[in-house]
């Protein structure tokens, strides 16, 4: 296929693929798109292919796609009949290529989260309507029957007229069972065939037993003693009605538990205004390519992740980070999809699109975490796996006990107790207790800018007894500035800064960056050094021309035998002011001491107080010297701190605390603290929400503030407490409900539960759990 034909294909196909309500680029735009291939830009396209039936089809399709200009790779998943194409190319070109190869293709639109949510809402609404209809019909028959039974009390069969009337009622109830309860019976049958038992099994057995017994009474009353000729049609209809009502209300309540996800999905914009061929055009967000220039006006949403290339503005990132203050953005600053441009107009270059944007990753991560279970739920899982058959056995034993030892009419008591046991024992509430709370809790945390990786992290965070805080970048801003430069006689201040900046230019340590930045501000250009070496936890060394440069802390100077006496008092004074003193030596002779201060974050003190007030022991770890560490710790109200710690020793400190029986949380910026983060019971990565930390940390705090940490722990504690309430409710309900239904209270109080009460209790048990979980939505972390 030559270039000309490719271009024609694109143009021909484009018109049919034009989405509604957007200004789609015309044919020439495709050319622009294709031309961009030379710029090394690529994005992912997902296609669904029809007609592929063999392995050779796969290679044919892949070959066809790979021949399209701009395609870097095309890989087909035969099992899924999907193809992932990487490259800078229009969707229409890909569809066309597949069609020319003899197959049908379409863009996989299932990726649209918003569409999926809409469809789910529609399906839920339809299901709700059906359940309400089923409930209404069942209760229309059940309620009058129950009122009749309660008012008149004549639910027995003695005369032939009564037989005829009750036979008609029995048929009517059968109608209810078929129309409103069909799904229970079909489900029970399929489940039975599969050698498993579930909620449907219990309902079908319970209502079926009640109906069959009643029909036996109607058909052959003489077989039973007079007192046992009671009929239970009202119980059958009421149980079906109430359980449908319970399911309907549960569907409604469930919808609310995932509101956090809906809100996150709602943050994604549908279109983006990209600049192509010097023209602004609106295109669907899925067509934005890497390196596209995107224009955003005040009040508009950022469509994809990128870096500002033009303009200046303030961006509201609160929906992602929980940080209420808009953040100033100018050239070179990153912008994140889903945030809102508040003031100026900017142009940014797309750096992440589609599923790669931070927002898409966050949505995925929250969804994954919402479906994971904390260890607390495992016991409930084990119990519910065996529950239904055990309940069936209890129902049989209960019936036998009544038949053998019960009062007359023992058969009626046996039927009532077995039916009630089956109906009341539904394990749905038990199964829902944990996932519902996790779903709301994880969502709630996401709203506060806290990304919890899984249920286990959520549970562990609630049990933390000691929180270790890294100093730089966690308690402090992590952006230190040079405050003082004291030089020895031989060099000038500028020379010292030039040397220091030259040697530190190769280091990524925040203190090094402060020195380089300070030199730049004063117009001092660093020179190229050789033999650069970083000495972990101590400093750096390098050669510049013939001079050996050494830059680092007291330990490094002592190790190299450099006399620092001339500056030791000054350095101590800096340290006491919470500044970090660093020594600079040239050719093994002390040349200067440079003080760098890293300002404490404005809300660190308040956030640390929140942690301490919740009973957590807070410990600060830092590689900084003891005096600086002490000064910072005192300022923020931490009494325990460990200074001059090497990165590898941070993990050792975590182990030490763990061996003392502490449940340790470690908070750091996710790179040099990685071993300690991994060792801790819960690792909190701070302020690096858009990077690797999302995948690696147990909990990621999207904003830099330590309030996120306190919020995470508060949400975690509230969620665990909510789970415990749910589990307690569900367990008590089954543990207490089943014996009462079996009749243990009868010998003492003459009390035997009605199947209707059991039906109502069962229907509302799940609803209670879901509603209790929904209470978490109103939880405000800062008040705790």
């Amino acid at each position, binding site marked *: 296929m030559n270039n000309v034909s490719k271009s024609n294909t694109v143009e021909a196909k484009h018109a049919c693929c034009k989405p509604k309500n957007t200004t789609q680029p015309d044919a020439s735009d495709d050319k622009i798109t294709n031309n961009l291939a030379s710029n090394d830009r690529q994005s992912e396209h997902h296609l669904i292919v029809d007609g592929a039936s063999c392995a050779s089809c796969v290679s044919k399709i892949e070959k066809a796609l790979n021949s399209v200009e701009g395609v870097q790779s095309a890989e087909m*998943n*035969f*099992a*899924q009949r*999907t193809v992932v194409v990487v490259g800078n190319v229009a969707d229409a070109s890909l569809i066309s290529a597949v069609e020319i190869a003899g197959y049908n293709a379409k863009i996989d639109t*299932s990726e649209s989260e918003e569409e*999926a949510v809409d*469809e*789910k809402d529609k*399906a*839920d609404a*339809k*299901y709700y309507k*059906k359940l309400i209809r089923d409930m209404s019909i069942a209760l229309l028959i059940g309620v009058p029957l129950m009122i009749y039974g309660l008012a008149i009390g004549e639910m027995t069969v003695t005369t032939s007229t009564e037989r005829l009337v009750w036979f008609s009622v029995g048929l009517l109830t059968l109608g209810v069972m078929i129309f409103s309860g069909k*799904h229970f019976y*079909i*489900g*029970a*049958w*399929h*489940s*039975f*065939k*599969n*050698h*498993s*038992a*579930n*909620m*449907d099994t219990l309902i079908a057995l319970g209502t079926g037993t009640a109906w069959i017994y009643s029909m036996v009474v109607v058909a052959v009353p003489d077989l039973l003693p007079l007192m046992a000729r009671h009929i239970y049609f009202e119980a059958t209809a009421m149980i079906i009605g109430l359980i449908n009502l319970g*399911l309907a209300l*549960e*569907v409604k309540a*469930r919808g609310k538990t995932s509101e956090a996800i809906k809100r996150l999905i709602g943050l994604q914009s549908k279109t983006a205004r990209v600049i192509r061929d010097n023209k602004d055009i609106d295109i669907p967000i899925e067509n934005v390519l890497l390196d596209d220039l995107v224009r955003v006006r005040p009040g508009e949403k950022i469509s994809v992740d990128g870096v500002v290339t033009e303009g200046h503005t303030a961006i509201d990132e609160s929906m992602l980070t929980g940080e209420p203050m808009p953040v100033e953005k100018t050239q070179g600053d990153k912008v994140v999809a889903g945030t809102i441009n508040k003031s100026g107009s900017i142009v940014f270059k797309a750096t992440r699109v589609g599923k790669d944007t931070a927002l898409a990753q966050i949505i995925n991560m929250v*969804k*994954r975490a919402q*479906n*994971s*279970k904390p260890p607390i739920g495992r016991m409930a*899982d084990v119990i*519910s*796996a065996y529950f*239904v*058959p055990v309940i*069936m*056995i209890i129902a*049989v*034993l209960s*019936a*036998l006990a009544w*038949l*053998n030892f019960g009062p007359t009419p023992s058969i009626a008591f046996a039927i009532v107790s077995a039916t009630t046991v089956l109906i009341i024992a539904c*394990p*749905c509430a038990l*199964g*829902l207790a944990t*996932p519902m709370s996790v779903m709301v809790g994880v969502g709630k945390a996401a709203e506060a800018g806290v990304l919890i990786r899984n249920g286990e992290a959520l549970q562990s965070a609630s049990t933390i007894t000691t929180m270790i805080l890294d100093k730089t970048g966690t308690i402090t801003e992590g952006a230190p500035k040079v405050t003082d430069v004291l030089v020895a006689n031989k060099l000038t201040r500028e020379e010292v800064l030039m040397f220091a900046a030259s040697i530190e230019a190769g280091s990524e340590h925040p203190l090094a960056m402060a020195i380089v930045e300070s030199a730049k501000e004063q117009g001092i250009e660093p020179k190229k050094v050789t033999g650069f070496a970083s000495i972990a936890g101590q400093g750096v060394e390098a050669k510049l021309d013939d001079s050996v440069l050494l830059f680092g802390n007291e330990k490094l100077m002592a190790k190299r035998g450099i006399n620092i006496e001339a500056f030791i008092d000054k350095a101590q004074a800096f340290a006491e002011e919470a500044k970090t003193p660093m020594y600079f030596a040239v050719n093994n002779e002390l040349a200067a001491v440079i003080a760098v201060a890293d300002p404490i974050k404005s809300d660190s003190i308040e956030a640390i107080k929140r942690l301490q007030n919740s009973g957590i022991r807070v410990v600060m770890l830092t590689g900084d010297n003891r005096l600086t560490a002490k000064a910072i710790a005192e300022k923020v109200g931490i009494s325990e701190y460990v200074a001059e710690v090497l990165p590898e020793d941070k993990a050792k400190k975590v182990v030490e605390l763990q061996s003392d029986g502490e449940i340790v949380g470690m908070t750091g910026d996710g790179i040099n603290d990685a071993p300690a983060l991994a060792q801790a019971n819960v690792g909190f990565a701070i302020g690096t929400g858009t990077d690797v930390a999302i995948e690696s940390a147990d909990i990621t705090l999207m904003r830099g503030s330590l309030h996120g940490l306190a919020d995470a722990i508060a949400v975690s504690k509230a969620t665990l407490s909510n789970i415990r309430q749910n589990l307690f409710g569900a367990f008590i309900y089954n543990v207490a409900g089943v014996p009462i239904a079996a009749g243990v209270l009868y010998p003492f109080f003459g009390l035997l539960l009605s199947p209707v009460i059991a039906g109502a209790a069962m229907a509302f048990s799940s609803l209670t759990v879901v509603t209790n979980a929904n209470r978490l939505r109103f939880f405000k972390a800062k008040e705790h």
Partner: protein
Amino acid sequence: MLWINLIGVALIAIIVWWFWLYKSSSVALQEGRVEVIVKDGVYQPSKIKIPANKETVLMFTRRDLSSCAETLLIPDLEINATLPLNKQESVTIPASPSGHYAFHCQMKMYVGELIIE
């Protein structure tokens, strides 16, 4: 009464055998894929045999309106998926060692077993 008691005991024995002791047959991977329908309270098939140490794709189609059926969990493989209604959803099982892995819905009302061997 003796007969009734014997019937009761037999019923208990049948429950134990049917739900716990009986080993139902499993469906093996065909043409590199298995299609699972989620309908009427069960996964069909509910016992699926796939090869060990090989990535496999299971295609789930949910035809059941119940919201519980919407979530598919395979806890031991750390898999959770959302199954849209009436649409095929592929769930990739990573190359895993031999063993029996339970899969189920959120409430554990829908249960199945993945036999990796």
